[in-house]
């Protein structure tokens, strides 16, 4: 059964590998260039300094200009990355949708379901092969894209903006698996390859748009905690822009502070008045 599943799948797998190779050929040189200029501009140390709160005005000036220079140069990269949001859809269209619908459309289910293996066995092997391949491809794709986008997302705005979020980490993997599952279901219901692909396309794009425009604005707002605290003599509690990891405040053990504001000028705070605001989206 594994032989049959692979024999039917190998052409699609080959095309996918070619597609990924072409993508890699485009992305590895540009990614390396981005990483190099990221390093050359001294941005890693700037970001470390931001995180440590040890920014002295002189360094701050040079860092700011470095950030600006990098952003001016590579900001458009994010626009190039927009089509990548829809790459998982192709896996759903060409792997998921035909899996069952092609058998039903050509009537070959009458051939394969009347051999000596049960339909459960058939489905298990098919789904495992497609699902496993999807997971492998999507993991490679997601890791590569995260590496590629890493400099941009470190210098740019929040990692949680729609574009940056959808392209990095586990998100592309989840979307690819979803697209394949949607394709399989559509193929089972519509039983013809083209309608199944159309439904997969419409379903995937529709869900993406609905999630971005309708659901995400209605998520729980970031929790805002305000509490008094006494600043220590060192200016250590200033944390970096969003995009860097949250830092532990030294004044309140066990509390995570993540803020984008400098603390006010040191003065004696009123005992119970809120001084800092910590937006803890990830705490």
């Amino acid at each position, binding site marked *: *059964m*594994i*032989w*049959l599943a692979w*024999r*039917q799948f190998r052409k699609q797998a080959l095309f996918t590998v070619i597609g990924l190779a072409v993508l890699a050929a485009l992305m590895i040189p540009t990614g390396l260039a981005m990483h190099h200029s990221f390093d050359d501009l001294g941005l890693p140390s700037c970001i470390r300094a931001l995180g440590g709160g040890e920014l002295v005005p002189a360094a701050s000036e040079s860092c700011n200009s470095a950030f600006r220079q990098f952003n001016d140069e590579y900001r458009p990269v994010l626009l190039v990355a927009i089509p990548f949001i829809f790459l998982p859809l192709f896996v759903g269209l060409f792997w998921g949708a035909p899996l069952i619908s092609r058998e039903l459309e*050509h*009537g*070959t*289910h*009458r*051939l*394969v*379901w*009347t*051999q*000596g*293996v*049960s*339909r*459960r*066995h058939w*489905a298990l092997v098919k789904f495992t092969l497609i699902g496993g391949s999807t997971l492998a491809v999507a993991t490679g794709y997601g890791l590569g894209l995260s590496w590629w986008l890493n400099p941009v997302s470190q210098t740019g705005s929040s990692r949680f903006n729609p574009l940056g979020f959808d392209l990095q980490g586990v998100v592309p993997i989840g979307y690819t698996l979803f697209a394949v599952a949607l394709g399989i279901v559509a193929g089972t219901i519509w039983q013809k390859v083209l309608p199944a692909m159309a439904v997969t396309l419409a379903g995937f794009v529709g869900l993406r748009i609905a999630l971005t425009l309708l659901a995400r604005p209605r998520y729980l707002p970031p929790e805002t905690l305000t509490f008094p605290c006494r600043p220590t003599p060192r200016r250590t509690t200033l944390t970096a822009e969003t995009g860097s990891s949250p830092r532990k405040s030294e004044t309140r053990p066990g509390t995570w502070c993540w803020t984008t504001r400098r603390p006010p000028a040191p003065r004696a705070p009123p005992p119970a008045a809120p001084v800092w605001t910590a937006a803890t989206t990830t705490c």
Partner: protein
Amino acid sequence: MAWTARVTLRWRPSSWARSTARIGPRIWALRNCSFRLPPGRIAALVGPNGAGKSTLLHLAVGLLEPDVGTVRIFGAAPFDGFETAHASILADIGFVAQDTPLYADFTAAELLTMGSKLNRRWDGTLARMWLAQLGIPPDRQVGKLSGGQRAQVALALALAKHPRLLLLDEPVASLDPLARREFLQALIGSVAETGTTVLLSSHLLADLERICDFLIVLNDGAVQLAGEVDVLVADHRQLIGPRDPGEHIQGVATVVRASNTDRQSTLLVRTDGPVTDPAWTVHDVSLEDLILGYLAQTRPQGSHTAWGVTA
């Protein structure tokens, strides 16, 4: 071996169901459909288009599940959900579906490999020998073979399983007369050696008469007639005699079909004794006459209103 099937397809009306005016979610695609097929026979399943032949064969091979009633193949239900028990019954059944579906991008050799991987009992030598004799190229995609060659590949796939029951759904429909004869001869030769029971559906009555020894007539979703060909032919007679005799004829059990001209009647009858009435001339019937007589009994009801014409 016995079959009993009483079926309605709630989720996919058969072509028969669609051709009648009563389109609805619950139409009986098959009903009153009981027969037993003795082992070792070559049985013909005949009936007009949409009578339910394919539905019956799909039920027998477990592609469909009867909603009501049971199908038993060698005493077991062929449709066993998605359980693995399904596979053990499938091992005993060889099935060639209508239009002989095959993976068009596979070569014949690859299809045989597929068969060997999917079946525990598999006689690859037999299949290769079979295809070699017929001159079918092993390394050519089956999508590029002729219809007759594809049918032979499909039959080879089914025969290599050494099935106890071979189900063929209109296997010769797309073949030219010569290929048809070759196919049927090959089939007979093969099953004669192994004692396989064969059930094949076909429209080609002349072919069936030559090879079949058991007959099942399916009409309008119901089994009209099932039995040994010899017995059936011996039981039926064609009578030609006066128009409107009115009374019961001695020796006639049922009148299957009567056709009248102005002066005389022609009856197809099932006899229960010798017909001795001198008013009637008695002729033997061929299997073809017999089948046609039964099939003509139930004509599809007209759909004049649906077409907007008057009857």
